[in-house]
């Protein structure tokens, strides 16, 4: 069966896998953003604390994903749970690092103004620092998202959702007529999804960057 016929016949399944792939990545990145930004906000002032947070998240990123998934199975079983946890763990480094860099990058004169005007620490963080650091934080989120699309394929091996299933079923049917079609569909699907998200990030960046920073 040629590839276009294969696509036509399996379109609905592929679409569902793609949606699940995107969903698990999006969910994980949202969670990781919440956690990573919080860690960044709590540690940016102290070089030691933020350095430790970055070192730990870098070490976690060094662990091969199949190994991390294996270690999560006894705790969380198979499926979405270990997948999401592993993906969250892997996306922390770019987000934490960029949050720290973004918060550190805010002009000290701006912080002094804010303090001099009587903004509390929390008000300064919410109204001044986070908006100013946002474009850099968002870049970290974007980097993480790109990374997760590839990693998420491996989660299929622990019964995770997404296009990894298509790839693995190609491998399982090695030698059969559709093996190549499956592998190509799965791989290309992941690449296309990643591209689409990257484009979405360009738009998101435009929409969420405060206008005063773009002029």
């Amino acid at each position, binding site marked *: 069966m040629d590839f276009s016929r294969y696509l036509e016949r399996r379109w609905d399944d592929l679409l569902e896998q793609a949606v699940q792939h995107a969903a698990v990545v999006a969910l994980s990145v949202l969670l990781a953003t919440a956690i990573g930004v919080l860690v960044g906000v709590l540690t940016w002032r102290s070089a030691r604390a933020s350095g430790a947070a970055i070192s730990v998240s870098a070490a976690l990123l*060094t662990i091969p994903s199949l190994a991390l998934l294996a270690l999560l*199975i*006894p705790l969380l079983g198979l499926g979405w749970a270990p997948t999401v946890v592993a993906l969250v763990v892997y996306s922390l480094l770019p987000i934490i690092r960029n949050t720290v860099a973004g918060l550190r990058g805010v002009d000290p004169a701006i912080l002094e103004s804010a303090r001099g005007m009587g903004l509390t620490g929390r008000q300064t963080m919410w109204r001044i620092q986070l908006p100013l650091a946002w474009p850099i934080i968002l870049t970290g989120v974007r980097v993480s998202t790109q990374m997760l699309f590839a990693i998420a394929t491996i989660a299929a091996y622990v019964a995770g959702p997404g296009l990894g299933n298509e790839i*693995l079923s190609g491998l399982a049917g090695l030698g059969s007529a559709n093996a190549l079609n499956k592998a190509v569909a799965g791989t290309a699907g992941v690449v296309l999804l990643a591209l689409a998200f990257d484009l979405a990030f360009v738009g998101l960046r435009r929409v969420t960057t405060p206008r005063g920073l773009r002029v």
Partner: protein
Amino acid sequence: MAVETLGGAFGAATRKGRGHSFATPAVLAATLVLLYLWVSTRQLDSMEARVLSAAFIRDAALTHLTVTAVSASLVVVIAIPLGVLLTRPFARRLAPWVMAAANAGQAAPALGVLVLLSILFGIGTRIAVVTLVLHATLPVLRNTIAGIQQVDTALLEAGRGMGMSRGQILRRLELPLAVPVVMAGLRTTIVICVGIATVATFINAGGLGDIIVAGIKLQRTSILVTGGVLTAVIALALDWLAGLAEKYVRPHGI
């Protein structure tokens, strides 16, 4: 595998501030000891006993390290000369195109490439190495180019002014000054290789992935934990070693 897009993620940035202390190897060694104690106090059934035998683990680890080492060496042999070539005047205009192509290739998930290649060319260690090299070349290539391009042009001018030939400038100025950046890329590459080598088990290429897969298939926690911890420890240890090397091959004065 977790880091197969590290190169894309972190660009030419050097990963500083890690790998200098001996806390890392101490923690890793302690982890291994704990793992050993934990496993040895358990009643192992026959399947566990087979997978968790010294011989099986040694074979898996050796294969893993070999695949990683061979791939990383091939990457060095391919990427550094290619990077140098792409910074020479006659090829400089090609560099952005090569980088763009390499970046695009990076977006493909390693697992997908691994499976595709094995469907097309057969399974086994060799195909695993090919996949690893394809995926892990980018960080070193990118960092070689970036490392050479970041060398201060005033220095090169001074070199020319002193009558150094192009080759001498490359060997005596550009390459030594690019070393730290290139090494950072190599470190990333090694981590990527360890990761992809783990999933190489899917195409019968051996390695520590064998233990993990056995753990998942047999549903044995002891096997899962052993495979996961061993793989993680090896990845962190190699990263630490690479960090150490990064520190020591740096030319004095930088």
